[in-house]
């Protein structure tokens, strides 16, 4: 989508992963009293760092394929039961990460806007 700027593409991938994390924590909390529920978690960082290594020195036309390969996945968590306090804590942590990403997104957009307006205040 944001082939114009790989930074924006990376940020939006991470925002997607953050949204999925929030969903998974919400699911764990909602199912805290469901018998036999297996808590879930999201793995994303491994795929992100693999893509970062692949991007290093990759030709421009290969970049969008590498960016597409960054995908968060939902896996069963190691713990067999949901710990409410832990899940709510993780959720708060994830919200701060989300906030940081949105700020980064806005700043990158600001740089683009600056370039489009040739440095003049629009």
């Amino acid at each position: 989508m944001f082939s114009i700027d790989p930074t924006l593409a990376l940020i939006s991938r991470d925002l997607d992963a953050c949204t999925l994390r929030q969903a998974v924590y919400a699911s764990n909390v909602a199912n805290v009293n469901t018998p036999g529920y297996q808590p879930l978690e999201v793995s994303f960082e491994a795929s992100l760092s693999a893509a970062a290594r692949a991007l290093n020195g990759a030709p421009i036309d290969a970049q969008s394929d590498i960016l597409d390969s960054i995908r968060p996945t939902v896996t069963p968590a190691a713990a067999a039961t949901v710990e409410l306090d832990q899940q709510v804590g993780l959720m708060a942590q994830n919200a701060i990460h989300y906030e940081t990403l949105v700020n980064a997104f806005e700043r990158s957009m600001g740089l683009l806007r600056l370039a489009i307006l040739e440095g003049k205040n629009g």
Partner: protein
Amino acid sequence: MGLMSILSLSTAGLGVERARLEVSAANLANAQTPVAAGQTGYEPLAVLVRSTAMSELSGGTLESALPRPFVSEIVPMKTSPRRVYEPGHPDADAKGYVNYPGVDPVTTMLDLITISRSYEANLKAFDITRSLLQRTIDIGGQA
């Protein structure tokens, strides 16, 4: 609409906890209702909560495929009635015992505490998702 479906996920959690609260309250409220000899009275109830199976991705987002809790059934509990010796009571049987529904006040109160905590946690999850949505709507707002 990833974040929107998380809101409905937390709402499903709130609904389940509310159903459990209703049933626990009904059990407590009817705990002191005597059952006349030879008749069936109030039976303590239990909520059976199940969650939807994690569905395969078919066009929708991963968020909407996550397990969602729901109240599967509200069924009578397998408890035996509480027998209290009250010979003068109009509902007493031949031996002077009155049957009360088999509600254990201690476990019911314990259930109420966990229900309350789970409800709070779901509310917190809802609130955090709402703040993320709000932040997303605000992108580019000050430009």
